[in-house]
């Protein structure tokens, strides 16, 4: 096995490095038509061009040298960087709860990847303790890397192996489980685990970070502390997402896995509970419930693991003027279940009717959710709604589109019987459809729960 001496370099730049025998991590002195440059040759990101060589100069900055200006260069030394988060053994403290942390990748712990120029996940209890020593005051920690994928690469296979891993840990008598996860699809996993791990006796907390832990202002450390505290001490034994409440480093919120959604591409406080209030507020010192009813922590181990999933499920996001061939194609490709995301109270245009009828004849299960995200599907108000129900589309109440997609995959993994599918879809496992929407569910700005509650009490909104 030979080591790559020219990591990421290609084309002209690679030829030049080879010609002058200069390696990546070599200390290079380069003469160019723009003058002399000196520094350590760094690896180059695969997606960048082949016209430049990257140097780390003595002051720590990186600069690129244009290969077309190079007159000559030589390697005057070699020193490879050793990038490692300092590892320290996670200390054991008598009487503190035991928490298991599952690593799946994502930015909760990460480091630089030269290949892509982006951050890649890095993870071990020692590393975590090295970076966030406060964790040792909360719990005794054991970690296990289940897999390392970016959030967008998480899928049914990963949900099922996670569910099984959770089952095993509960069997062993763990006090709480934390899952480190990229944020993009955190809420999909939240829904999947809610369906796959039923009757949980302990909290299962999904946590991520919006700013990678390689930056000083990262939300990773605080999120992790909150998540560990929730797993170790909280009385709420459900699958929950734990992320920043406000953008300030103040408190986190615990969201129900079936009611949470990522609502901003980059804000720290991106996760919001939709159609309800969050379960609780959490700070480093206390957990304050917002919802009064929830599944309480128990001392038994009677969890029910249901690791099922049917991959041939898809979503159809309706837009005005959509033609029927889209839906036809889905059916022709063999999709067994389709979550339609309709406008308003749950509508699509009449041009789709023939395709809907065709789909129903072929036994495709179709359900209606909403583009408005907030509110209930109500298909009785207008004719189009009634027409569609007649053609076999089943309204899913206030189930979120992503949750509906996950649930349908999970249901179809168990049965294909239309009545059974319908029954399972409409019977909530943990509030994916709620019976009532609280007045403040939509109004509460989740970055300032008590303050805004106070505000809406006084001001008509």
């Amino acid at each position, binding site marked *: 096995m030979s080591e790559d001496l020219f990591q990421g370099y290609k084309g002209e730049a690679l030829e030049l490095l080879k010609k002058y025998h200069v390696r990546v991590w070599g200390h290079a002195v380069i003469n160019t038509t723009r003058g002399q440059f000196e520094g350590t040759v760094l690896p180059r990101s695969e997606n960048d061009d082949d016209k430049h060589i990257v140097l780390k100069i003595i002051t720590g900055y990186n*600069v690129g040298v244009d290969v077309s200006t190079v007159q000559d260069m030589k390697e005057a030394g070699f020193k490879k960087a050793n990038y490692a988060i300092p590892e320290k053994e996670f200390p054991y403290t008598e009487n503190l709860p035991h928490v298991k942390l599952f690593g799946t990748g994502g930015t909760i712990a990460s480091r630089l990847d030269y290949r892509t120029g982006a951050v890649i996940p890095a993870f071990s209890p020692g590393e975590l303790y090295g970076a966030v020593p406060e964790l040792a005051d909360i719990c005794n920690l054991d970690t296990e890397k289940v897999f390392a994928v970016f959030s967008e690469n998480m899928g049914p296979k990963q949900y099922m192996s996670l569910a099984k891993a959770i089952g095993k840990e509960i069997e062993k008598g763990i006090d709480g489980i934390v899952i480190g996860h990229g944020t993009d699809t955190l809420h999909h996993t939240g829904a999947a685990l809610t369906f796959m791990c039923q009757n949980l006796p302990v909290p299962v907390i999904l946590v991520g970070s919006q700013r990678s832990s390689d930056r000083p202002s990262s939300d990773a450390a605080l999120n992790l502390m909150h998540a560990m505290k929730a797993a170790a001490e909280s009385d709420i034994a459900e699958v929950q997402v734990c992320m920043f409440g406000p953008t*300030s480093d103040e408190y986190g919120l615990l969201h129900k896995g079936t009611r949470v959604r990522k609502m901003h591409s980059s804000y720290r406080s991106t996760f919001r509970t939709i159609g309800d209030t969050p379960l609780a507020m959490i700070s480093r010192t206390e957990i304050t419930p917002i919802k009064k009813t929830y599944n309480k922590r128990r001392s038994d181990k009677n969890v029910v693991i249901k690791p099922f999933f049917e991959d041939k499920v898809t979503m159809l996001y309706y837009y005005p003027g959509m033609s029927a061939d889209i839906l036809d194609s889905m059916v022709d490709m063999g999709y067994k279940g389709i979550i339609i995301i309709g406008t308003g109270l749950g509508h699509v245009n009449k041009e789709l009717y023939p395709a809907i009828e065709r789909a129903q004849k072929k036994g495709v299960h179709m359900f209606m959710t909403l583009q408005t995200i907030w509110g209930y599907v109500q298909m009785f108000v207008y004719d189009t709604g009634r027409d569609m129900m007649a053609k076999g589309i089943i309204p899913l109440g206030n189930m979120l589109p992503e949750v509906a997609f996950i649930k349908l995959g999970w249901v179809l993994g168990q049965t294909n019987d239309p009545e059974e599918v319908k029954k399972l879809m409409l019977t909530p496992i943990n509030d994916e459809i709620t019976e009532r929407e609280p007045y403040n569910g939509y109004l509460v700005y989740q970055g300032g729960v008590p303050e805004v509650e106070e505000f809406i009490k006084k001001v008509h909104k």
Partner: protein
Amino acid sequence: MKKAFDPIQNYQETMKKAGYVPRKEASQEDYDRIGFMSGLEVHQQLLTKRKLFCHCPAGVLHSDDNYNAEIIRHMRPTLSELGEYDGTALMEFKTRKNITYRINNESACTYEIDDTPPFIINKEALEIALEISMLSKLNIVGEVHITRKQYLDGSIPAGFQRTAILGVEGVVPISNKDIRLIQLSIEEDSCREISDIGHERVYKTDRLGMPLIETVTYPDCKNPEEVKETCDYIRFLNRSTDKVRTGMGAARQDVNVSCKGGSRVEIKGVAHTKWIPELTHNEAFRQWSLLLIREELNERFKSKDEWKMDYTRLEYDAFSITHQPIKLAKANGEHLYVVKLPGFKGILSHFTQPEKCFADEITDRLKVIACIEKPNMVHTELAEPVITGADLEIISSIMITDQENDALVIFWAPEDDVKTALETIEERCQMAFDGVPEETRKSFENGTTIFERVLPGADRMYPDTDSAPIPLSNEYIDTLGKQLPVDVSERFKQLRDWKVPTDTYHYILSKNLVPVIEEITESLDYSPKFIGTFIGQTMKYVEGHYSQAADFNYNLLISMFRFIQEEHLEKEIAKWMLPHLYEHPNMDFPSILETIKFKRSTEDNIMKNVPLLIEKYEKEGRKQCKTAEKDWISGQLRKQAIGNMNLKTLANNIEALIK
């Protein structure tokens, strides 16, 4: 009997031993003896419409209490690209600061608070910075790499500043030599601090993200005057583009100083170049004094490891306290500690800077690192003793003290800060065995400095994974190279050739006014010497004594002289017109003449008055002296003459008429 220890005497003796002389009396030999070495980091805001990495307007500033929201962040140290922690980062983490940012919607968006990734770099700013890089004779990079530079003090909410090198290895000439440049970077400006008390630091975000450049020199300056001259040159160079911001805080510099055997110490945020000489002078001698302390300690102890401090908590009630700060600490429920520094007698009162001694090094760090507001300690070598003989006896009863050799520090702090305070004291004392700690220091107008932070190193750099590299093609650089202004060294030469007085150069170049002089003298019939002197003296005087109207600009000087020439007025009248033009730039020139009560006359008409005045002078029996008589008559006619005839000609003509 042994003579009692006198801290004042010790201070004076150690000052003498360090060879400290006031700057005005210092010679190059003094600086050579201590190995004075200094370089600069000159910051300059660029004149752009928008900020560097987002689309907020640049230059919209707010008062401290004008904000829409506050957010809070805590910073944690992270690893550098090469896998190291940075020393400053660890120090800042120790301080456990709550950092609050005030946000005004007009001047900041979600980017400033690190909730939105950067947009593409501001091209306007990049071009200005590249122009300045070329003027600084730097080697321009082939590709710009945005780097994150960690700042855990909170001055940037992200915890890092986005910055990028545009050029390396340049040079600027000063009168007697060339000063080499290490690099020039473009970066985003930081927050402005509102307050920093205890564990709470408050910033505002209006300035945050504005485009800024930093020019870094090698430590090529060998005396304080050279540092100032270099700094002025770089500032003039930046200004010569006419594309940089001016006014309070738009240009500021950090000055790096060391002495032979000392360390690099960075004096931060020096607002005026005129402060530089005193600051660098004092810092070099501070380092020299710290080296003497090192020598002394290494004589007293075999090694640093042999030295160990001791401490214990004191009960307030054991003492009769008269010292007000300790009374206050007691009332606030703070804890009181005594720290024994073995073998430190004579060190605490050792000279470091004018009116400062080694104990100040400790108290400053207690404030910054342990967040204990000053006054935070007393010690056994104060000029006005606070720890009395009776106190010493009580302390001796709980901690064995060798009064001949040891020094004591008593500090008070909230319980949570005691641990950091003890570590801080111990650390600073241990550092004394090694000489001069690398640190950044805050400057004061009187030329002294105090500890600000541990000096950050290259370990705080990290590639910005949120932005792609920006290639700079040869064609692009060539195009920019064609629009460069004249070199500042050439401007100096022009002023010298014109014989404009040397003391006006600073003003003229700092306002980039040579182009104005050129335009007036090339299009009108005035000498560069006259115009240069007029601008360097009269314009400067007016600027310092009258209030400027918002729409005044220096090009109005061109119009004024054109008016004076076209109206065939004597050029001296400019001096009387200028204050009005400065305060009312929209007033037309005839109206300005009205305002200064100018009446058109001829030389003949004015001279007609002379015989009468001679007669009057003699009649009144004044002093019989030709010069006095000439001056008196000139004075009588001066008002009429201004603008109508040259005042020197007037005097000469009068002189000729007096018998």
